[in-house]
């Protein structure tokens, strides 16, 4: 499976015209064509694609993701230490934690708010509560994130100076205590995380709402109610549990999304995350980095699918029984 994915992505990548020597900076009369040709030979870019793929597979089999083609030559995945003890960090190693942190926070926020909003609008179906929640989540979904981001940056950062505008750390961050460093980081994350969560609310909350509506009309809910259970117990214990089952699939499917960042959000907030890394490497035709990110992404997709299936079996006895049979 992984081989198939990598083969397809490797070939598509090489279909795009150009290579690392055709960057805008190298379009400079002082840079000679011979030196570009030398670079192409050095990176094996003059060989047929199939041979390049073979070389790549050979390296990847030893879990060596290689070095970036960019002039900094950073390792793609993990840090490298040279003989005198200088550590060069890997590109993915630097970007991934930041993106993971933002996306994990985002997913937690999306799920907790959507489950609540979805339940609320299902219980209060067709009232003003339901309608305004739907309106709110759709506005959140439809609003252009970069526009809202700039407005909020202006409001909270320039006219009121409550929150930092961009970046991840304040100046003089190194001199702060651990706790203050943490608070500083949180302050920097508030805007990016809330903007990225806003657009995700619509899908999930409508999922929960429709799931809840289905369940609430089923017989066992009527039974529970006629047993004289409190309404809150009926809704939150009996109905909600069943309604959020399909969400397990969504969680599983969103695992690969965890390592992908949004180029626009990362550029606006000046966050050095995976989205920007991937985008820049595509523009530069930095093949080792592109392949590194794609391989990890496809690996995580497979893992996500597996986890979703396992989660289903764990949560739903019917699936478990079916497996045993």
């Amino acid at each position: 499976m992984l081989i198939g994915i990598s083969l397809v992505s490797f070939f598509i990548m090489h279909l795009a015209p150009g290579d690392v020597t055709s960057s805008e900076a190298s379009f400079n009369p002082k840079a000679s064509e011979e030196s570009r040709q030398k670079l192409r030979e050095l990176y094996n870019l003059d060989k047929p694609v199939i041979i390049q793929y073979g070389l790549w597979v050979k390296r990847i089999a030893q879990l060596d993701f290689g070095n970036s083609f960019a002039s900094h030559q950073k390792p793609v995945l993990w840090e490298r230490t040279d003989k005198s003890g200088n550590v060069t960090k890997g590109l993915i190693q630097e970007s991934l934690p930041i993106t993971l942190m933002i996306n994990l926070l985002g997913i937690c926020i999306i799920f907790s708010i959507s489950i609540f909003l979805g339940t609320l609008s299902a219980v209060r179906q067709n009232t003003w509560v339901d309608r305004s929640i739907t309106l709110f989540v759709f506005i959140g979904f439809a609003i252009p994130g970069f526009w809202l981001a700039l407005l909020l940056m202006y409001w909270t950062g320039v006219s009121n100076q409550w929150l930092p505008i961009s970046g991840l750390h304040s100046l003089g961050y190194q001199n702060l205590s651990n706790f203050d460093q943490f608070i500083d980081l949180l302050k920097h994350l508030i805007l990016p995380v809330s903007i990225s969560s806003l657009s995700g609310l619509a899908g999930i909350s409508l999922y929960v709402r429709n799931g809840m509506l289905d369940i609430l009309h089923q017989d066992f809910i009527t039974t529970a109610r006629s047993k004289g259970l409190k309404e809150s117990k009926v809704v939150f214990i009996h109905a909600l549990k069943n309604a959020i089952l399909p969400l397990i699939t969504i969680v599983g499917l969103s695992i690969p999304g965890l390592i992908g960042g949004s180029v626009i959000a990362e550029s606006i907030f000046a966050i050095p995350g995976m989205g920007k890394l991937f985008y820049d490497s595509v523009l530069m035709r930095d093949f080792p980095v592109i392949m590194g990110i794609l391989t990890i992404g496809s690996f995580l997709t497979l893992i996500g699918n597996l986890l979703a299936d396992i989660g289903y079996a764990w949560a739903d006895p019917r699936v478990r029984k079916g497996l045993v049979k």
Partner: protein
Amino acid sequence: MKKNFLFFNFIFILSIFIISCSKDTSEVINYNEEYKNIFGGSLINAMAGEPSNLIAMIAGDSASSAIAGNIFNSLIKYDENLNYAPDLAESWAISNNQKTITFKLKKGLQWADGNPLTSADVLFTWKLITNPDTRTPYASDYQLVKKASAPDPLTFKITYETSYAPALDTWSSLHILPKHILKDEDINNTFFSRKPTGSSYYKLDDWISGQQVSLKANEKSVLGSPLIEKLISRIIPDTSSQFLELTADNIDVMNINPIQYQRVFPARKDLQQKVALYKELGNGYTYLGFNLKKPPFNDIRVRQALNYAIDKDEVIKGVLLGLGESISSPYKPGTRWNNPNLSPYPYNPSKALELLQEAGFKKNNDGILMKNGKPLKFEIITNQNKQREMTAVVIQKRLQEIGVDVSIRVIEWASFVNRFIKTGDFDVVVLGWSLSLDPDQYNIWHSSQQGPGQFNFLGYSNKNVDRLLELGRKELNVSKREEIYHKFSKYLLEDSPIIYLYAGYGLSAVHKRVKGIKNPAPPAGIYHNNYDWFLPKPLRRNEISAR
């Protein structure tokens, strides 16, 4: 609890729609007072891209050279009027046969780590850049040196095969690297590219990947001490975010675009109070280039006609909001290489039509120019660059007026170069070249430079120009050289292989707390003396509260 949260959310969203332009009521500081220059403080600037590698001969991106320029010295440099001035070398002498240059280094030079800097380091750097294993795109200029030697620690001597006029320019851009650190390193992949040791005003303090690069004053700098203690470059890819940071007082320096310069600043009194704007002639020009191998562009009358049909002032007004100049040679206006007797083709559509009729084109019933049953129709291609796209649109409109059918296509850079430029599969391009300080344009205009990947991709060939370019490369006498390149510019303008559109201004916004900036900007730009800039104590940012 949860309901409260919902309520909060509602308020939150509602309030977005009623953001009022609440004005900051902080105390008014008078930035216009006179202040004495004093050492200290940090200057924060914003850059869009992260430097890749601080060894400039390998890096090649502008962010890297901007940072590396504060850390390393060359043998000589350009002064504010773009004449050669001493940097590491105290003096230099050119032999009578114009083939040998002898540099005398200043006495007592040292690296930031205290080791002496001698001509051995210079020789080492030359060996490094000409070493075939070094992955540098710039080797070719230095490979012309036949023999280089360092007879004593203060003397560096180079001999060229034939005299080479751009030599001094090439030595002004080569950063001298320390031999004692790099002699056992692989220059292509070394820690030194992110932890350099230089000799100039600043040294690297701290580099947080993807976020910021900070430099601090190098107390061992032989050129004396800069006045600002720390230079911090924050990496903020988006210019709107940079602008917000500037408005919120979190950064001091950024490059701005014409809209911010002409529209936003005049409308914002609060910004005018604390931010000063500077404009200087930029380092590049934008042109419309013809594929000279393709008809009808092989006909000089067609090229000249199109040149007459394009209103350059209109382009400058529309695209740059007036913040640019029209040019008539590939050199900075006001410098010695620019031929003052030349002027751009004026906007004259009737003259254009006349020339096109001479070339055999006639208008058909729809008002389209036709020749031998074929319409005058072509495609302008350009890369994803907003200014170039807008330029193409303005040109399209003007050309349609005289009956030329023009379409526009915008292509991502790498595809643009490989699919169209290298293969020669294009009609007309809108692109830019730099206004280089050395007048040599051999690589762009000599007829021998037309191979795939070389820079005369338009296919220009003129025997007179070839001869002048060859002569100009050998002539070290400045006034003779000047004459050569004035003639060259004249041929180039007449042949019109490209239409010079504009040379845009470089626009900078600098917080008024920064003093010592020359205004109006000298030919070398405001940044050339950034070691003379200073931050008066009362105006410095309180660093703890700085976000």
